[in-house]
């Protein structure tokens, strides 16, 4: 709760509270943003408000890959130059961004919208796994790349999906798991290190 709650005008404290709920925005930043907007022209505030409202209004899930999009199919799925035989499976729409940034992957994506987490009661049915299987049944996909996060739930999800896909005769691969770039061998845990060893490569 904003400590100045009782002394600040309600519209101000309300916006501060809303900003404060956003990831990475602490109370100080929330205050700064709010007082900044207080100084801004009415047009500027309206632009921001409209952008926030438009965010939800015009967005939906791509009917092919389930990424969040304002067109259907999304930009990636409707790009004729992309390789339709490869599908990269990710947990969340946001995971596509870093993969696209690499410019190394020219295939399509499939967004699961979550990860299997038995102790939270999140089951395979709660994810978009069925959509993936339907998609694989109808499209000429030859490789599925599992790019779930390298943690316990991510791996469980990948292993489970692999088990479902392998009878279909489609190649299933997953991202190499190993040491993070900029990381330090000294601080690596045994799982990371042993997987980095398993995935070692010839140097050219």
């Amino acid at each position, binding site marked *: 709760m904003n400590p100045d709650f009782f002394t600040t005008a309600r519209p101000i404290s309300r916006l501060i509270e809303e900003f404060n709920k956003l*990831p*990475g925005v602490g109370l100080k930043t929330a205050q700064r943003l709010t007082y900044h907007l207080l100084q801004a022209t009415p047009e500027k505030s309206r632009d921001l408000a409209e952008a926030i409202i438009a965010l939800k209004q015009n967005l939906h899930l791509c009917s092919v890959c389930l990424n969040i999009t304002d067109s259907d199919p999304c930009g990636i799925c409707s790009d004729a130059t992309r390789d339709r035989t490869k599908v990269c499976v990710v947990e969340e729409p946001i995971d596509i961004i870093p993969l696209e940034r690499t410019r190394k992957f020219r295939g399509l994506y499939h967004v699961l919208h979550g990860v*299997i987490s*038995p*102790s*939270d*009661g999140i*089951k*395979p*049915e709660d994810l978009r*796994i*069925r959509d993936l*299987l*339907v998609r*694989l*049944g*109808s499209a000429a996909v030859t490789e599925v790349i599992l790019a779930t996060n390298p*943690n*316990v*739930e991510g*791996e*469980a999800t990948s*292993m*489970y999906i692999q*088990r*479902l896909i392998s009878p*279909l005769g489609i190649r299933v691969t997953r991202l190499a798991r190993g040491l*993070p*770039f*900029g*990381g*330090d061998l000294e*601080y*690596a*845990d*045994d*799982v*990371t290190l*042993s997987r980095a060893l398993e995935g070692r490569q010839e140097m050219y």
Partner: protein
Amino acid sequence: MTSSRVYQTAGIIIKRHKFGEADRLLTLFTSDCGKVRAIAKGAMRPGSKLGGHVELLTHSQMMLARGRNLDIITQAQAIDNFLPIRDSLELMSCGFYLSELVDTFTEENVADRELFDLFLNTLLELAEAKDGERILRYFELRLLSHLGYRPQLQKCANCGKLLLPEVNYFSPAQGGALCRNCGYPDMGARTISINALKVLRFWLRCDFATASRVKLSTELTGEIKGLMRENIRYILEKQLKSIEWMDTLANGNLTLEAPPS
């Protein structure tokens, strides 16, 4: 427990949630302080020094600083990651279930060294096992017994008569086995075979290595599983969430099959 601000303990990570952008909120079961909730700052950033050392189902040596609400993990070094558990979907699921059991049955900040050792040994056994079912049953029985829910298995839990070597009844509500005179199926009692009774009695007084040498038929395995599950459900007044997932896997019931193309 000491009152100093910084303390060190070994612990097993039994639960973890995202917390803010890159932090993790962890539930640890520690050797010295029992169940503790703590924040691992920046644990989700690649290259974090905590990273894999505070992953779910990891046994770590940790340094913690006491906070107002939650403690903060300042250092962590994995002692055992139980790698084989992570490489098997079935064993991993057993691990999820064990963690949920420990989490559900314990209160925060109540030291319980014996339970910690039981839990740790169970994970170590699991990491060497092909099939986790028996390990789970043994753990369930020891856990209940340790926490004061040891089922009555020698005498009838109602009339106190020595149980005869025949099919008897078992009632979680009455705290154990019932003789043929006292067991009424309509009162929530189910039958228990004499073999199941013998196995449970034996497991209560032997270590896991000895317990694992008992030969069990598929039928008997199923019976004991059903008994323990019902018993735990009665005590907790709910079903654990990870059970449904384990059943999905165990039944090979991969219900999400693609429609025929």
